[in-house]
């Protein structure tokens, strides 16, 4: 529950503070956010399965973000940043869908 509160507070803070995103960070931030969202949905699913663990949650978010950023960085260095970003988004999107499907099964039983 507390992580969800954190998310809400973060969104509100963002709306209030209107942070400026540095230009160099922009290609990474979008992917990092999606990777973190994947981890969040994974955490919700784990929580519903009763195996949620703070440590695992934090580490999974951090590793997801770092790996996503690394992939984008590598893609930019190779000149295929846009395509690789798309690939990462597709993969993370699939994972989010499967996580959401599991959550749905837990909540609705269908």
């Amino acid at each position, binding site marked *: 529950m507390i992580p969800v509160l*954190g*998310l809400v507070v973060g969104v509100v803070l*963002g709306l209030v503070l*209107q942070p400026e995103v540095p230009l160099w960070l922009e290609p990474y931030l979008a992917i990092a*956010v999606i990777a973190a969202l994947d981890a*969040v949905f994974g955490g919700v699913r784990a929580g519903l399965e009763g195996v949620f663990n703070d440590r695992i949650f*934090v580490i999974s*978010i951090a590793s997801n973000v770092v790996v996503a950023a690394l992939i984008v960085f590598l893609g930019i260095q190779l000149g295929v940043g846009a395509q690789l970003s798309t690939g990462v988004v597709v993969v993370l999107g699939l994972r989010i869908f499967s996580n959401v499907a599991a959550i749905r099964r837990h909540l609705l039983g269908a």
Partner: protein
Amino acid sequence: MTRGNLLAAGVTLLLGLALVAQVQSTAASDLEELREEDLIALLDDVTSRADNLDDEVRRLEEDKARLAEGDDGAAAARAAQSRLESYQILAGTVEVSGPGVEIVLRDPDGELTTTSMIDLIQELRDGGSEAIQIGDVRVVASTWVEMRRGTLVVDGTSVEAPYTVRAIGDPHTLSGALAIPGGFIDNVRRNGGSVEVTEREEMVLDALHEPTPHQYAQPVP
């Protein structure tokens, strides 16, 4: 509330912050977010549009220049036409119409002299007349008059009495100029002739002067 809980909350807080920041920066910037290919396509589009507009500008400039030129030509033609008209009136090669005076001279005793005819022409010119006709002869720059044995000869053509002189100009000024005390009318009447001056709003001088080629005078370039 464990440390792990707090940490997770902090991480998700950061996530929310990043999420909103990213969404807002995407909404704020248009071109920055476009991919390279899109930017190139956009640039191509803008460039070709600029080229088209440049072409249009060039075409319109040409049109403008042509129209200005045409206007110049028309203006020159108008100026030439008006110059031609004034020269034709001066030379007496066209019929002219306009307001003026008609003077009928009668000298049953043959008292009218060459000098009084020259006085008449001078008085009319002084009064601002723009064209003069005596009988059927147009008076131009080279016109001469003579009373030859009681008959008026203008430019070698005999004019039958009574002599009709028509002058185009401001009718009031012309008749006033002739009626000056001690002027033309006074002189003619003193010598036994009669003068009848009629102011007309519209009259036509139909006599034409045949211009003769100049034998001696040449324009100095």
